């Protein structure tokens, strides 16, 4: 609903901003009339930026046209200055990055590696009023006065509801050696979250968080018209489509790109990119031109990138809704640039290695994931500072589903040749068979989720998650509870939830509650209890505690007719009377969270009994009398509860059959151990 309301008011803006390339003669490609605005288009940017590779500096000037969509007025504009996160070690980003314990660069950041962005001037575009002196830095999240990632500009007069304002800025910025997928390596540049970017003015004020190590971004939708000046001859890729290419005659070229209805603009340039073009076509979906910017050494993997992109466009498109932009740019980042695996509107980075054998799932998985973000993040633009799980979780779930559907389960990749002192994985790769998930590869998320399962309440705003463990909740836990919903409600029902959510919130900013509202509305089940549980930090862990089965012996005092007789258990069952066995199964709820589960009792003669259990109490006994012995019991036999953190304790056999497989793996391991010892023998 929220998204729909603003469309009419925003539409007029689209006309104003787009007029230059509707009327101008400079439009290079056929200037199809801009279709109806898809988004509110209330934050529109025209930017001129120049990259100087010598100094690794950007200098930019931009005009922002912003419309206040809220009912209240504001006399301030809040901006993100993301690149100041890597200005020095005092920023909130750097501080939090240290908690993540994975930044191998923290000890050796060289002089030229840091970045910054400085705003040189701010003024009102219409009358030239200089606002430069009103700028100040804000630290709404943590009061870190050394953080310079949020800047506020005071306005001389408030912007009232429905009004618009045009602001001009001049700025310059130093490109970092890659932090958070942004930066340079050699002549390779990946320029993301690079210009002073407006926060989002919401009903209760500005939503403009500082840059955090563990969180991503949030912005309003708009129209971008960006001219990028780079060395002539370099290949450039960016959000949107190129509408003009101008040779400046001074060794530089200016690439002008335009895109409507997106909430960010990212670009990359390098002299080395190999450009591969392809097109996605599908009976039920609009076509999409695919532009792949490939590292030349990955030429042999071009088709794999394209196939994975198409798989995402197809499956997400069919499941959730069509990709509306008509084009997408896939960037294969330079080796060691650290820019792999990131999403931006109509452009994303994949990531592969020189040796990535087919069947190992790379680059397919990351390509599907980032292409999938075009839907969850790009089109449905939730606040990633606060509800990262909405895009990352929905997308991680969808990635696994798409990969399974399009490529099946991938093999385990063992990498070799990692020289001393070198971080990361080896250069050569071998695929190993026999180490998979048996078609349940989405359960790899259980392994990632388990150690951090109780690290934070999922309902906590993402920027307050612990920087190290937060990802386990946003990505893995959410993917697992969505999988649980799929198993529980059926795919059609979950698909209906997700596609309704997509339809309703495309080009909008949904919150967690908006998702829950759609979920409750679309399904007939009452999801309240489940959703409240997963938003907490309690874990699901059901187990079969014990199984026992024994003959119902004729022993002890038994009433026979009118008499009570004492039997010693030696009597055989009478002719025609079956021997009976009593089977007892104790199941437990080991975790704090509960979920209705089934309990399966399987007997030696093949007979099976299923009981339903609400799963609330801490334990429950199931007893069966049946003329065959119990063989095993399973709680949640259909694996509905993908969130269960210990799947292996969900079943129990009367007789353990662990020996043979234990021998199998121990025998193999012993041979490895002998080789390991022999390797020590090298020294003598």
């Amino acid at each position, binding site marked *: 609903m929220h998204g729909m309301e603003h469309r009419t008011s925003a539409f007029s803006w689209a006309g104003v901003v787009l007029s230059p390339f509707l009327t101008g003669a400079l439009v290079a490609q056929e200037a199809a009339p801009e279709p109806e605005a898809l988004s509110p288009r209330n934050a529109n940017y025209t930017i001129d930026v120049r990259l100087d590779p010598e100094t690794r500096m950007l200098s930019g000037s931009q005009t922002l046209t912003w419309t206040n969509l809220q009912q209240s007025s504001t006399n301030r504009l809040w901006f993100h200055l993301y690149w100041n996160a890597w200005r020095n070690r005092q920023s909130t980003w750097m501080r939090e990055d240290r908690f993540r314990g994975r930044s191998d660069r923290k000890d050796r950041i060289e002089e030229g590696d840091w970045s910054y962005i400085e705003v040189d001037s701010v003024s009102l575009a219409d009358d030239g009023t200089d606002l430069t002196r009103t700028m100040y830095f804000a630290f709404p999240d943590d009061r870190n006065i050394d953080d310079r990632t949020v800047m506020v500009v005071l306005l001389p007069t408030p912007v009232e509801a429905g009004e618009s304002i045009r602001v001009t800025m001049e700025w310059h910025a130093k490109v970092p050696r890659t932090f958070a997928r942004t930066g340079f390596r050699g002549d390779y540049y990946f320029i993301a979250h690079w210009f002073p970017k407006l926060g989002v003015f919401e009903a209760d004020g500005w939503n403009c968080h500082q840059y955090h190590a563990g969180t991503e971004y949030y912005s309003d939708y708009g129209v971008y018209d960006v001219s990028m000046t780079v060395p002539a001859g370099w290949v450039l890729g960016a959000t949107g489509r190129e509408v003009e290419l101008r040779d400046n005659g001074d060794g530089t070229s200016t690439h002008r790109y335009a895109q409507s209805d997106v909430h960010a603009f990212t670009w990359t340039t390098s002299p*080395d990119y190999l450009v591969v073009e392809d097109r996605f076509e599908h009976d039920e979906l609009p076509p999409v031109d695919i532009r792949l910017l490939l590292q030349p050494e990955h030429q042999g993997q071009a088709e794999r990138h394209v196939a994975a992109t198409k798989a995402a466009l197809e499956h997400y498109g069919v499941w959730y809704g069509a990709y509306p932009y008509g084009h997408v740019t896939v960037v294969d980042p330079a080796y060691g640039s650290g820019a792999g695996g990131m999403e931006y509107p109509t452009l994303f980075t994949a990531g592969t290695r020189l040796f990535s054998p087919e069947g190992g799932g790379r680059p397919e998985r990351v390509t599907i994931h980032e292409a999938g973000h075009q839907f969850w993040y790009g089109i449905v633009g939730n606040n990633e500072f606060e509800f990262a799980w909405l895009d990352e979780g929905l997308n991680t779930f969808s990635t696994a589903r798409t990969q399974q559907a399009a490529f099946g389960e991938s093999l385990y990749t063992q990498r070799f040749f990692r020289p001393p002192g070198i971080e990361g994985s080896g250069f050569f790769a071998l695929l190993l068979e026999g180490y998979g998930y048996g078609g349940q590869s989405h359960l790899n998320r259980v392994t990632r989720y388990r150690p951090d399962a109780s690290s934070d309440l999922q309902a906590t705003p993402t920027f307050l998650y612990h920087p190290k463990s937060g990802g386990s909740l946003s990505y893995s836990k959410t993917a697992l509870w969505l999988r649980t919903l799929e198993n529980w409600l059926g795919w059609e029902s979950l698909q209906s939830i997700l596609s309704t959510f997509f339809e309703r919130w495309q080009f909008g900013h949904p919150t967690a509650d908006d998702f829950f509202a759609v979920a409750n509305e679309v399904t007939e089940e009452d999801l309240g209890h489940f959703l409240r549980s997963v938003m907490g930090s309690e874990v699901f862990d059901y187990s079969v505690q014990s199984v026992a089965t024994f003959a119902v012996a004729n022993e002890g005092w038994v009433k026979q007719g009118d008499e009570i007789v004492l039997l010693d258990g030696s009597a055989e069952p009478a002719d025609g009377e079956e021997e009976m066995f009593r089977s007892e199964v104790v199941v437990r709820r080991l975790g704090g969270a509960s979920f209705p589960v089934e309990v399966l009792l399987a007997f030696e003669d093949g007979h099976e009994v299923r009981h339903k259990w609400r799963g609330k109490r801490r334990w429950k006994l199931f007893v069966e009398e049946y003329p065959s012995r119990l063989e095993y019991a399973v709680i949640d036999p259909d694996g509905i509860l993908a969130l269960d953190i210990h799947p292996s304790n969900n079943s129990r056999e009367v007789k353990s059959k662990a020996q043979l497989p234990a021998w199998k*793996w121990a025998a193999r391991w012993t041979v490895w151990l002998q080789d390991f010892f022999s390797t020590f023998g090298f020294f003598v």
Partner: protein
Amino acid sequence: MMVLRAFSSGLLAALAAPKLLLLLWCVLLAASVPLGLAMQQEIADDIGASRVHLDLRQRLDRVWLGEFSGRAESLGKMLEPATAGRVDFLYNLDLLFGGRLFSQHRGLVAAGVGYALVSLLMLGGVIDRFARGGGRFVLSQFLGACGRYFGRLLKLTTLSAVLYWGVYRGAKWVYVTLERGVQDVTVEATVLRYYLLAAVPILLLTAVVMMVFDYARIAAILEEEPGTLRALGRGLRFVLGHPVSVLTLAVLVGLCVIGLVALRTVLAPGVGEATALGIGLVFLLGQLFVAGRLALRLTLVGAELALYRGLR
């Protein structure tokens, strides 16, 4: 020609000493089987009565493996696809080259060092037997020789360990410096080329240390040279005096090891349904591989001895 003659004489010496091979193999078996049994126990205990055994019969199920690694206190953490498959040799070689061999599970590293010491102990006996040869293999004689030369060999080996450590530190410095040097290179193949190129002098240096000490050990026993430094001097003089022969011989044996590994990789059965027969077969093939490696080790000793005698 001398090299080939030395090589074949080494091979013959190894083949003519099945009891020696058996002894070495038994030592390795004795070092590893108890740990293997402990691993078997740990896996079986972890599976317990769970039906996850059905998955584990087919594959090293990674959902279970994730749970197992999380719960495992000790040895269990060392179970992973690379240590339960046919790439074990490559994996260990990478650990050795990357300088990560000694940062593995502490107990296993300690056992590995212990095994190396026992190997060293027996090396004295092996060289003595190959050098003075002939006659029936008498265990007590063999062990006597082992004991007689252990002190000398240990001193030499301690010295070599210091040098290997130096080579490792140097290699690490080279790679860290190189990594910084290629920080603006955008092509993985180029970086890989540099890294492989850097490996050449490192491996060469390692090989030189290895050979100098191999021949120093031979000198210490063959020529009854009790002085560590004097033995080292002889080894060094020999290697410097006949660098091509020495290197060719080492390469020859190295190629045999590669051939053996390749053969084993091809022959090793994949991961299939667990059966007692299959498990036995995998283990048996593993033992043939292990015994093959030991035989090649003996071949190297015998060949080096022959070369030393022939060229001295």
